[in-house]
């Protein structure tokens, strides 16, 4: 079934997107391969956090440089993504360690009962990986949108000041915020419907302290926070770099 869906996607991409569509399909394949390599490295024993950071750099590079060519817009977006990642990682590290959301939940315990629990793998680092990988996609998307739009505006309005360019970036970002919060909400619901159906009538005390709810909420809201702070960061980086390049 996956194969049929993939073929349909490829045909649609080719028909509607032509060359660009094919590149999109290839970028999906490359990114998936990076994901697989990340898993192999973590399984081999490498520190999951290091693997995640390196993997995210790779994913960003594929999505920006392969898909969109190497130019000033993509280079700016790349820098913005890296800065945002570095800012977020400390926050995510501390929060995940304190809230004890690592490993599996009681609801999952049945499914893994046939396996041994002795895997010598730091599950806290794994859940941090999950959170970071979940937000990398939307951060890249917003960074390139702002960087691209600001580039167009900059080219068409040579007498805009750096501050005004920054403000334009923020305005564009604010429009995106609305759709982003709703996209996150829908993704959350899509993945977590079962939890709500199951726990609809349960004791409130248990549900709001549960590992399941806590880890999902932390994942989704860290994603949200990441997509929000990339807006001022990429506006700032874009406006600074475009002005430096123009020699002003």
């Amino acid at each position: 079934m996956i194969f049929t869906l993939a073929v349909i996607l490829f045909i649609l991409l080719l028909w509607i997107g032509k060359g660009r569509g094919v590149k999109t399909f290839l970028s999906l394949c490359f990114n998936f391969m990076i994901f697989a390599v990340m898993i192999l490295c973590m399984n081999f024993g490498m520190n999951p956090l290091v693997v995640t950071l390196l993997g995210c750099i790779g994913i960003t590079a594929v999505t920006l440089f392969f898909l969109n060519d190497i130019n000033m817009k993509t280079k700016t977006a790349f820098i913005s993504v890296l800065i945002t990642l570095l800012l977020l990682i400390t926050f995510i590290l501390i929060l995940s360690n304190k809230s004890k959301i690592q490993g599996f939940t009681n609801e999952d315990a049945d499914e893994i009962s046939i396996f041994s629990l002795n895997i010598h793998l730091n599950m806290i680092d794994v859940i941090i990986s999950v959170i970071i990988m979940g937000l990398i996609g939307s951060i890249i998307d917003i960074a390139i949108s702002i960087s691209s739009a600001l580039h167009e505006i900059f080219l068409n309005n040579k007498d805009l000041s750096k501050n005004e360019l920054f403000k334009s970036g923020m305005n564009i970002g604010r429009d995106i915020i609305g759709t982003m919060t709703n996209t996150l909400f829908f993704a959350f619901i899509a993945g977590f419907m079962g939890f709500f159906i199951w726990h609809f009538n349960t004791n409130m005390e248990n549900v709001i302290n549960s590992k399941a709810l806590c880890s999902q909420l932390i994942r989704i809201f860290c994603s949200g926070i990441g997509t929000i702070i990339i807006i001022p960061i990429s506006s700032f980086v874009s406006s600074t770099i475009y002005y430096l390049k123009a020699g002003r």
Partner: protein
Amino acid sequence: MQFIHKNKLFIITYAILVLLSIGVIYFFSNNYAYYKKTIAKVTKVEEKQTKTVPNNIGIQETYYAQSITAVIKNGAQKGLLINIENERSFSGVLDKQISTGDDLFITFIKSKDNKEKIIIEDIKRDKYIVFIVIIFMLTLILIGKRKGLLSLVSLAFNIILFSVILYLYKRGMNILLLFMIAALLFTVISLILTLGINKKSISVITSTLISLIVSMLIACIVFLFYANKIEYEHMEFISAIYDYQSVFYSSVIIGGLGAIMDIAITISSSISELISNNPLLTVEELKRSGKHITMDIMGTMSNVLLFTYICGSLPIILFTMRNGMPLTMAIKYYLNLEMIRALTGSIGIVVSIPVSLKISLLFLKRGADI
């Protein structure tokens, strides 16, 4: 100075919000009295490595014994100092890893030889949930300002709508039908709240709904062919759901909706901007510019979907691989459902591009027709 003057109202309101937030977080960190179950706060943890246990492929797991000193924070025994024994592993797959400062839900039980033993039921996490939600809201309002606040309002509406759906589902309504109605309502409400009622929002709503229907039809046809090959047993919480097929299908619809709306808004906004900056552009020129914009976003959006869905499977894949399962098998097992979601969502995105382009040209530019 001028900056502070101009934004006085915002700074004052925001400062009040921050103070309120600190209050709320403080409250949830200390709300022991509101709980029926006994809670103890950990003051000291002493740890000692006890043993190493191998699994079936030779990986050695290290275990530690934790000697925990804690203070009971509520109930009849408030203030009592207690000692709890806990065992944890290096990995922490299912066990509890206790550290100083944690709040624990505990129960007292009498073991066989009449000795009293203390069991840790779970860790109190409500303050972390409240913390992350508040940080999210504060960041959203700080950077989004009024638009950020509006998106919070639309989020609140969507949450209420979702609760109503859950309630109706529990009363017996068909979930698929519920979610189709929900998709319609989610779309209309979110878009009207963020864009207002104007040509732009109507064009976005129409494009979203049409793209959703088209991509769902495609998915439906494929589903019908392969219905018995989808491995539903990997769905989370499957044991509680009897009509899991519909629930899964609904989740695919809802998941795709967000991405489709995003694309529809981007295209409509861009076309609208292009027209307002240069009303003399012809339909052909608009079509060409529109195509350029859409090419850029199509690529990144599909990748966003891919990673949002597959990252959640990382723990289970690694876990089974450390038990000897080969990578290809683990991926085939645990990414099956997520890939269906990601691919269907991407199909929706690709479909929504020409649909949004044609519809926004139709609504926003005079003289354009399909």
